C-alpha cells in the first residue's frame, strides 16, 4: 500500500535498482518480456498511485538518491528521482537557496514522486507547485527509450514535454534525472496565528487577504477537530482549543521592511474579518512550534482512530465558507469525524475522515461521505484533486469532471508515451469512460460542472452533439 489506507495490492516482484544503468537494464528487460511495472518513490502517495498488482513489477527508486549537481549560480540542481524532498532543500540552504515546493510529507517523499504527482505544499500559494519548478527531465519510457526533455534554462525543445510529464502519475514513464529550479531563501519571515469562532468567518478572512492583493507565503486553515487532535498530541502547538478554526498565515520576502508592513496589514485584515485574536510569532522557536502543529496534523489525526482517509479537493476560494459548512453537514449525517486541515489560500481542501477499516459498514459510510464531499466540491466549480492525484482512488470521480472525449484524449496521449500501457497500468484515466479516440469524431463542449453562464455563452448548437451520458 501507500499513504492511502483503503487499498492494498501485492506485486509479483519488487526491484530496487542501485544505479541509473541498473534501472535502465531492468526496464529494458521488462520491455523485452512485455511485463507491466510500477515506479515507486517513498510510497507516501495518497491516491494509491504506487500500488502494483499481481503480474507486475514494482520498481522502487529510493536508492537513486544522489544530488548530481548543485548549480547555485544558476539557482538550479540536478537530482536523481529518489532524492528526498527535504534533503534537497537542506543541501541548497548553505547556498542561500531552497527547493520551494514543500509537501507536508517532505521529510519522506521523493522528488520523483513529487514530479509524478505535481506535488504542492503550504508554501505553494506564493511559490507555485512542482510544475513551476521543474526545468528539465530525463525520462525512461516503458519500451526502454530515453528522452531528454526541457533544457537547463527551462525553455522546451519544442512542445512542453516537461509540463506534460509533471503530474502524469507514473503513466508516461520514469523520471530518471530531474533538473529543478531553486529559490532564494527569504530573508524576513513573519508567522501569525488567528483564531475564529466560525469556519465561515475564517473562510471570509482568507478572501479578504487575497482581495487586498497580498500574497502570503502560506495561508493554512485547521478546524476544531484538527486543533484538538494536534493539541492532544506531542506536536501541541498552543492552538486555542475552543476556536472553531485557526488560520496560520506566513509572510516572507527578501526585504524586512516590506514584510513587516505587509504583516501589519494582514493582522489588521484578520481582526476586521472577525478574528478573536491574532498572535504573531515572536521568536523562531515559536514560529516553528506553530508550524509543527500544521505539518504534523496528519500524524496527530492518526491518533484519533485506526485509519485515516486524507481527502483532497479544490474549490474556488470564495466558495470556501459555504463548502466547509456543507462538509460539516455531511459528516454529521454519516456520523463521521471529519477534520479539516488545508491550504486555504489556494482553496485546496483536505477533509480527513477518521475511521476503522476493519468495520465494513463504517468503511462504506466513509466511501459514501467521500463521494458526497467530492460532488459538493465539483458543484462549487472545483475539482477532485489539487495535489494528491487520481491514482486508483479517484478514478471513479474522473467522469464527473471530464467528458468522454477529454478522457479519451488523455488516454491517447498516454499511448504516445507508452503504447502498450505497461507502466503503472489502470491508474488516472478510467478507461471504460473514455470515448475511443480512433472512432468517428464528435463535437461536444464543456465541463460537466459548467454553470449556466458558460452554457449560455456557448450554445450547443449543432446536430453532431451527443447528450452527456
Amino acid at each position: 500500500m501507500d499513504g492511502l489506507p483503503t487499498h492494498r495490492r501485492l506485486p509479483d516482484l519488487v526491484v530496487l535498482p542501485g544505479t541509473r544503468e541498473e534501472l535502465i537494464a531492468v526496464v529494458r528487460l521488462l520491455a523485452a518480456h512485455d511485463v507491466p511495472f510500477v515506479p515507486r518513490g517513498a510510497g507516501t502517495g495518497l491516491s494509491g498511485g504506487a500500488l502494483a498488482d499481481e503480474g507486475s513489477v514494482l520498481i522502487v527508486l529510493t536508492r537513486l538518491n544522489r544530488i548530481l549537481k548543485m548549480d547555485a549560480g544558476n539557482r538550479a540542481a540536478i537530482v536523481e528521482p529518489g532524492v528526498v524532498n527535504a534533503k534537497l532543500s537542506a543541501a541548497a540552504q548553505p547556498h542561500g537557496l531552497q527547493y520551494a515546493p514543500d509537501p507536508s510529507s517532505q521529510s519522506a517523499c521523493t522528488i520523483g514522486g513529487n514530479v509524478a504527482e505535481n506535488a504542492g505544499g503550504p508554501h505553494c500559494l506564493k511559490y507555485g507547485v512542482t510544475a513551476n519548478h521543474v526545468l528539465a527531465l530525463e525520462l525512461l519510457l516503458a519500451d526502454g527509450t530515453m528522452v531528454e526533455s526541457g533544457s537547463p534554462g527551462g525553455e522546451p525543445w519544442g512542445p512542453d514535454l516537461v509540463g506534460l510529464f509533471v503530474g502524469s502519475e507514473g503513466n508516461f514513464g520514469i523520471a530518471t534525472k530531474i533538473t529543478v529550479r531553486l529559490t532564494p531563501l527569504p530573508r524576513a519571515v513573519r508567522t501569525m496565528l488567528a483564531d475564529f469562532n466560525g469556519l465561515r468567518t475564517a473562510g471570509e478572512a482568507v478572501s479578504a487577504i487575497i482581495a487586498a492583493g497580498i500574497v502570503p507565503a502560506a495561508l493554512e486553515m485547521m478546524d476544531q477537530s484538527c486543533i484538538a487532535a494536534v493539541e492532544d498530541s506531542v506536536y501541541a502547538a498552543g492552538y486555542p482549543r475552543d476556536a472553531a478554526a485557526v488560520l496560520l498565515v506566513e509572510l516572507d520576502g527578501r526585504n524586512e521592511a516590506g514584510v513587516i508592513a505587509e504583516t501589519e496589514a494582514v493582522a489588521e485584515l484578520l481582526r476586521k474579518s472577525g478574528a478573536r485574536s491574532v498572535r504573531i510569532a515572536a521568536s523562531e522557536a515559536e514560529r516553528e512550534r506553530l508550524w509543527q502543529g500544521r505539518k504534523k496534523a496528519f500524524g496527530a489525526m492518526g491518533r484519533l482512530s485506526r485509519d485515516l482517509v486524507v481527502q483532497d479537493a479544490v474549490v474556488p476560494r470564495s466558495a470556501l465558507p459555504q463548502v466547509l459548512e456543507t462538509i460539516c453537514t455531511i459528516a454529521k449525517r454519516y456520523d463521521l469525524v471529519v477534520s479539516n486541515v488545508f491550504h486555504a489560500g489556494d482553496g485546496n481542501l483536505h477533509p480527513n475522515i477518521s475511521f476503522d477499516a476493519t468495520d465494513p459498514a463504517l468503511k462504506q459510510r466513509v466511501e459514501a461521505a467521500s463521494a458526497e464531499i467530492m460532488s459538493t466540491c465539483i458543484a462549487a466549480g472545483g475539482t477532485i484533486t489539487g495535489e494528491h492525484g487520481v491514482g486508483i482512488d479517484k478514478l471513479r470521480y474522473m467522469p464527473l469532471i471530464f467528458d468522454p472525449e477529454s478522457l479519451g484524449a488523455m488516454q491517447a496521449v498516454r499511448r504516445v508515451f507508452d503504447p502498450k500501457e505497461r507502466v503503472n497500468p489502470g491508474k488516472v484515466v478510467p478507461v471504460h469512460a473514455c470515448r475511443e479516440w480512433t472512432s468517428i469524431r464528435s463535437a461536444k463542449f464543456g465541463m460537466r460542472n459548467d454553470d449556466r453562464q458558460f452554457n449560455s455563452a456557448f450554445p450547443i448548437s449543432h446536430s453532431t452533439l451527443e447528450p452527456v451520458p
Partner: protein
Amino acid sequence: MTILEKVTALLGEGAVLEPSTDRVPRIAPGSPDAVALLLGTAHQEGWRVRIEGAGTWLQSDAPADLALTTRRLDRIPAVEPADLTATAEAGIGLDQLRQQLADRGAWLSIDPPGLAGRTLGSIVATATAGPLRHGFGPIKDHLLGVTFVTGDGRMVQSGGRVMKNVAGYDLTRLQAGGFGAFGVIVLVHLRLRTLPRADVTYLLEGAREDLTQVGEDIAAAGLTPAALELVSPALARRERWVLGVRLAGSPALVAADEAGLRAASGGARFMPLRAEEAHAFWMRLAEGFAVRPVTFRIGGVPSASDELLDLLQHQLGDEWISASPAAGAIRWTGDATIDRLQRLRRTLAGLEVPLTLERAPWPLRGAVGHFGAYREGVGPLVAGLRRTFDPGSALVVATEGS
C-alpha cells in the same frame, strides 16, 4: 460545391470573411462548437487549414485551403475577482481583456510582445512571454486550463478553473507553446492577480556589461522586481543599452524595493518614469518586435546570458534585442536568412539552448520550423502527439521545418 459554399452551408454567411490577400477563404467560426464542426469537416474533406488569431502580425501566409480565424471567439464568460480567475475565449484581444479585468480590480500579469490587440489564443499558442516573466513566470504559469479543438474536430478540455488541479494529465501545458500544432485553442481559464496598487518603472542607461552587473547586484540584494529587462538601444530608442526595472505590488513592498534599489545600485543613477512614460516604454518595447520580419526567442541559464548575447551579436547582430538575464530568456528580432538561422540553432543546440522561431514569413518559417534540433527521444514523441491531435494533418503549422 466549392469549399466556400460548403462552409457557408455549414456555418452560415456570417462566418465568412473577406479572403486573405492570397485569396484563401477566411472563416471566422462564432463559437467553439462551430470550430469543431469546421475542423471535423476539414478533416473529412482533406482541407488544409491555417489558424489565425487577430491576424495582426504573423502573416497569414501558410499554404492552405482555408484560414480559420478565432476573432469572433471574443467573449469573456467569467471574471471572478474574488477568486482571481477568469475565463475568456481565445479570440479576445489582450487589450480588451486587460481592460475588463482592470475594471474588476484584476490583472493578468503578462506583457507579451506585439500589438495590444493580440489574441489571447495566439499568446497561449506561441507561449510568448514578455518582461514580466521575470517576476511572474512563463505563460504556462498563468493558465488554469484550456479547451481546444483537435485537427479532426474533437473538443477537449483540460485543467479547470481552480488554483490547483492535478486531475488527469496536463494537456494545458502541451497547448501552451504548441503553435497550434495540437489543435485550436478556443477557451482559456486564467489565473489572475489583483491589480497592483503600486507600479513603478526605473531605467538605467549604460554599457551592456555594466547593466548586466547592476542586474546581478539587484538580484543579489534580494529585490523582487516584476521585470528586470535589458533592452538594446534601437529597441529602447535610447543612446545606449537600457536596464528597465519594474516594481509592482502592494505599496509597502514596492516602497521597500525602491529603497533597496537605491541601495543596491550604488551610485548608478536610475531614472524614475512617470506612469504614462512607463506605460509607453513597455508598450514600445512590445511593439518594437513588430517592425522586423523575423523574431525568435532563446532560453539559456542565467549565467550564460552575456555569452549568448555576444553570440547573437556576432552571428546576427544585436540591434533589436530584449532579455531577462535572470530568467535566461532572450528575444531577438531583425532580418535573417534560413541558413543563418539554422546555423545559429545548431550552435545553440550545442550549448543546450533551444531556439524557438516565433514569427517569420512562411518560406522561412516553413524551412526553419518553430522548433528543431530536438534532443534525444523528443522527435518521435512530438510526431506521435501530432498524429494524435491532428490525424489528417489538417492544421498547417511549421513545427520542425523542412
